[in-house]
């Protein structure tokens, strides 16, 4: 029993440790997370690999350089009787440590270029969503899906009520108490209306800003893109598995910059199509009722 307990705990720690390093076990940030999330797209996986490759290169160079320094600091101390030599240059050495870094950098630039070329290509998307940043909320408009224009499906997405109440200065509410149905803390990372998208579909995002510059970032998708007034930026994603992925605005946009999270809910394709159809008919109904209302009370278009 005791033995099993230790082993159980060891396994938990091993899982936690590997998860800390890979970030694969959680879709959301988790306590003591040390590294990037691996994410749920090909792009985010490639970025994670690039992140690790460049990190390892830095570690190796660091070990060599700092190692040499530490050896020098212990071996060539005056208190140990070290006598300084007089030499002060070596063309050969200097060439070596100019050329080798160039080669290492080329080794990093190559995969980075490859990833960049692939990820900037937004062609052949099966779906388009327009994302607009406002102070301090996001708007999502579904533009087209599967070659057909989507009619009037769009909504604002704001910080959820529970987080909003808790985040007020001296609210007296505990951020730790803001949890979702599974008990996972989603303080400041939850919204009233998440962006619903199908998994396994190449989605193109058209990103712009309504007032000031914002930046749309969901770490699990592997990128962020600025939302700039007057400019429409394009980016894309193809989410490999259904789930809820959270992010935040990443460009300072005023007082509530820290309070405009992003939630992407990826669902299976069939489920998404059902959802989209329901939204479209709801919009139709809404429009019909509004038109009816406008007809019955001419002059009063406050609803429009």
């Amino acid at each position: 029993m005791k033995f099993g307990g230790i082993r159980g705990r060891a396994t938990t720690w091993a899982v936690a440790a590997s998860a800390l390093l890979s970030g694969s076990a959680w879709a959301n940030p988790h306590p003591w997370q040390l590294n990037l999330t691996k994410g749920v797209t090909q792009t985010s996986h490639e970025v994670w690999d690039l992140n690790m490759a460049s990190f390892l290169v830095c570690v190796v160079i660091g070990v060599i350089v700092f190692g040499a320094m530490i050896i020098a600091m212990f071996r060539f101390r005056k208190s140990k009787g070290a006598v300084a030599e007089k030499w002060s240059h070596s063309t050969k050495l200097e060439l070596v440590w100019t050329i080798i870094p160039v080669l290492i950098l080329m080794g990093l630039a190559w995969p980075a270029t490859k990833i960049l070329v692939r990820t900037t290509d937004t062609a052949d998307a099966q779906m388009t969503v327009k994302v607009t940043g406002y102070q301090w909320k996001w708007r999502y408009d579904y533009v087209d899906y599967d070659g057909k224009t989507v009619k009037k499906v769009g909504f604002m997405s704001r910080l959820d009520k529970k987080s909003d109440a808790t985040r007020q200065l001296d609210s007296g509410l505990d951020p730790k108490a803001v949890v979702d149905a599974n008990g996972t803390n989603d303080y400041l990372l939850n919204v009233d209306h998440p962006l619903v998208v199908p998994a396994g579909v190449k989605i193109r995002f058209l990103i712009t800003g309504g007032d000031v510059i914002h930046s749309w970032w969901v770490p699990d998708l592997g990128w962020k893109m600025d939302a700039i007034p007057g400019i429409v930026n394009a980016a894309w994603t193809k989410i490999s598995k259904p789930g809820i992925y959270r992010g935040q605005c990443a460009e300072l946009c005023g007082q509530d910059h820290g309070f405009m999270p992003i939630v992407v809910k990826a669902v299976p394709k069939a489920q998404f199509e059902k959802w989209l159809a329901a939204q479209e008919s709801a919009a139709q109904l809404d429009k019909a009722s509004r038109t009816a209302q406008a007809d019955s009370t001419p002059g009063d278009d406050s609803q429009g």
Partner: protein
Amino acid sequence: MAHAASQDHHDDHHEAPSGFFRRWFMSTNHKDIGTLYLIFALLMFFIGGSMAMLIRAELFEPGLQLVQPYFFNELTTMHALVMIFGAIMPAFVGLGNWMIPLMVGAPDMALPRMNNMSFWLLPFAFTILLSSFFLPGGAPAGGWTMYPPLSIQGGDSIAFLIFFVHVSGISSIMGAINIIATILNMRAPGMDLLKMPIFVWTWLITAFLLIAVMPVLAGAVTMLLTDKYFGTSFFNAAGGGDPVLFQHVFWFFGHPEVYIMILPAFGIISEIIPTFSRKPLFGYKAMVYATASIAFLSFIVWAHHMFAVGLPLGAELFFMYATMLIAVPTGVKVFNWVTTMWKGSLTFETPMLFAVAFVILFTIGGFSGIMLALVPADFQYQDTYFVVAHFHYVLVTGAAFSIMAAVYYWLPKWSGNMYSERWGKIHFWLSVVSVNVLFFPQHFLGLAGMPRRIPDYNVAFADFNMISSIGGFVFGATQLIFVGVIIHCVFFAKKKATDRVWEGSKGLEWTVPSPAPHHTFAVPPVIDDSQLAHGDVTH
């Protein structure tokens, strides 16, 4: 003024003028003005630092406990402006003022009256900036980068910020002109360009960077001003302008600005490491060329601050490659410092401790810089705490540590007294430990997904934020020791400094008495190559 000038003319006493006001406010003496710059920088370091303490206190745990989000943004904005323009830059100008004439054998700066003016503009500039806290609507809160439309959305504080940028920009440009004029015209006979100390070289190159980019910043903020008050639309999309244009112009200033804050630090470290290794600097010429290449590259990498604005693929690639190239000359410098220590005869007085810490910790900041240069990865890192960690490693453990190293290194020459080595070392060890507790966890926070410039965060980020804040409070408090050491050294220390101060020190500044008399090198010194740190660089 005429009789005052003629009085100066006949003043052959070589003493500091009597009278507090006359000495400190009307000074044209490079040493006194250098001292003024350094005291000013220290004051600003504490003002900017107290803002940082408030920021870290609010971020101590999730939830808002101390300040409203808008005031938090004022704090982050002002912290950056005060630290960059008030602490780091004036400290380097102060060190340049004090040491460049001494290092090249000149009697003073080339343009002493302008020197006085370029300093005395700063207190006015910062009064303007800091007074904006008391305006209705508060201080600027759109970030030190002042990106429109956000920056011109608030109250009139932006006008104060713009006026501040103009005044301190004029001060910087005048300082830079003075330094260039001094280095190019006032060197003692025999002090060839390629015999100058590296600190002088790095400042010469920095001064050219300043002259090149401060007017660009002035232009950018003037366009902001006319956009806000005079109906222009340079950056207003609704009027046919482009908000991204501001970012391009700003970072064309901003990236060389980064090197303005680090090249003199490279110079300082290149002076200190040979002294305490008792061995000549390795690869003097390579150091000069590396500094020049970094300065050149700094003009063609600006868009790496803007990878996420939606640049075309070609631009992303160009700026990625150019940025990565900077690692090569920077690497040369690091390798040269390490090789200077190799087979030397090392001792670890406080300046050397700070210099060694600089090399290691600045290099860590350089490593995260390489990671940030990779565009696809930058799409994840950009605007997160990973970036915050990166630039604090290069600016705090880089620039600020080099300034502390320089103060310990030259304080005996300035004051004539030895500082307390024991308290210097206590200051060092507390600083170096706490600064890593402060900034290292911020790498993890950024990678885990915490954006920068937010006053509150998800509980997943709570642990590292608390650790970081604790490190911050200790680091902040530790700097009071620094002030204590300086005051003790200048006013109370019993142990007198020798002229040479350090066993391994070389160069003209160590040939004058300690404390350096009010006027030095009234007659140009005779240069003896063996007395220079880089006297023989024929190879």
